[in-house]
């Protein structure tokens, strides 16, 4: 099936991209196109104008700084995030999530930011970045702003972006000492398809006590969701197996899954408890290493 007809622009600066978006209100931004072009071909999305970000120089940068942390640019490829030495060393779960997205070919075209902006509740790169307190850098007609990732997702396919705004980068702070992260997702065809359910966490330990934690569940609500009551169960307490079990049960109660092609609501609900348990104990282990 052929793509329907559209005009195509490849501006070379962010400012030009924004002016183009202002002058063509029905235009869509495209990075790798692995979500956008498929929606056009198979889901009947008709676009009049596509504005590619790929010719904007510098937007594909992946930068790591000991104090500032990690910045992933809007056109940085999933494949490059997956093997970046600093990301592997300081943000192993970010690399793991990128590597667990789709297949080799799609990772050579698609981007982490495209995965976020597409705003699928099942987006594989979202839960870990949310757990780590990432924020998105946005640029638009009225300048630049920064939005915490946990305020970015508004619903399936919906984000906090205003008209003519684009995301230029996602920034991830350094982990505090004695912190660990983990992400586990399940899907019918391994990493090839979007997750049926996924849970990510970050845990900070002081001795054996869980000083802080953030737990996010993917594919079990209109956006990836935080499970604050489950966090409360473990925060400030010694992180025992028993407490981890309780947090799992609570996370499952907080998730609001539906039944769809990928899994039933019942299965998802059960798996949230299992995965929450597993990620908490994995993160605990990493935090104490």
């Amino acid at each position, binding site marked *: *099936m*052929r*793509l*329907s*007809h*559209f*005009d*195509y622009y*490849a501006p070379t600066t962010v400012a030009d991209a924004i002016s183009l978006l202002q002058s063509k209100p029905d235009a869509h931004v495209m990075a790798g*196109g*692995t979500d956008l*072009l*498929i929606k056009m*071909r*198979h889901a009947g999305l008709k676009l009049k104008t*596509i504005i*590619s970000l*790929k010719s904007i120089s510098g937007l594909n940068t992946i930068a790591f700084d000991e104090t500032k942390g990690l910045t992933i640019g809007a056109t940085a490829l999933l*494949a490059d995030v997956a093997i970046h030495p600093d990301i592997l060393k300081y943000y192993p779960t970010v690399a793991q999530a990128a590597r667990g997205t*789709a*297949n*080799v*070919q*799609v990772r*050579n*075209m698609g981007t982490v930011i495209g995965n976020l902006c597409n705003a699928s509740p099942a987006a594989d790169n979202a839960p870990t970045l949310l757990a780590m307190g990432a924020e998105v850098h946005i640029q638009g007609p009225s300048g630049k702003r920064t939005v915490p990732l946990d305020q970015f997702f508004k619903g399936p396919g919906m984000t906090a972006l205003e008209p003519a705004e684009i995301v230029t980068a996602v920034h991830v702070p350094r982990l505090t000492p004695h912190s660990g992260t983990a992400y586990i997702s399940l899907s019918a065809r*391994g*990493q*090839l398809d979007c997750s049926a359910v996924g849970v990510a966490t970050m845990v900070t330990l002081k001795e054996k006590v869980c000083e802080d934690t953030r737990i996010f569940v993917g594919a079990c609500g209109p956006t990836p969701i935080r499970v604050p009551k489950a966090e409360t169960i473990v925060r400030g307490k010694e992180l025992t197996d028993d407490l981890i079990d309780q947090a799992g049960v609570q996370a499952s109660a907080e998730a609001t899954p539906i039944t769809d092609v990928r899994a039933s609501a019942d299965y998802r609900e059960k798996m949230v408890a299992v995965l929450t348990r597993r990620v908490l104990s994995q993160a605990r282990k990493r935090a104490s290493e």
Partner: protein
Amino acid sequence: MKQIIELNVNGESYTVAVNPWQTLNEVLREEINLTGVKLGCGSGDCGACTVMVDGRAVSSCLSLAVEMVGKEIMTVEGMAPSGEELHPIQESFVKKGAIQCGFCTPGMELTALNLLNNNPSPTYNEIREALAGNLCRCTGYKKIIEAVGAAGQKMKEASERKTS
């Protein structure tokens, strides 16, 4: 409106007139007649349309031709360096019986090349993982994985001979 662009495919330059909505797959097959590039699902799932762009395996069904200006594109037709002898991966596919109907073969071979360029001695599981986005409707996966392993071995030996 059609745009005149120049594409570098298998080391040769082609001037083609394309519309922005034409995929690399359509242009390679229909304008340049490189029909070794296949079209299966059109949605990134099957890998039949895989080509190399600047040394990376990508799905040509999800790539716009207009975005390929200034890039080096390689299809299965460009794999064998001399055009007479087969590339070690191709040879290995033939020898190991890794080809049945052949529809998935060009994509499989290019994805294998992408893997072996980055990882000359992959494990069995690394090969499986790398080929996860390539479907074989004849289901000859075992032979394909063996062929890729054997090709890696051969390419490594050849490059060691060159440097010694």
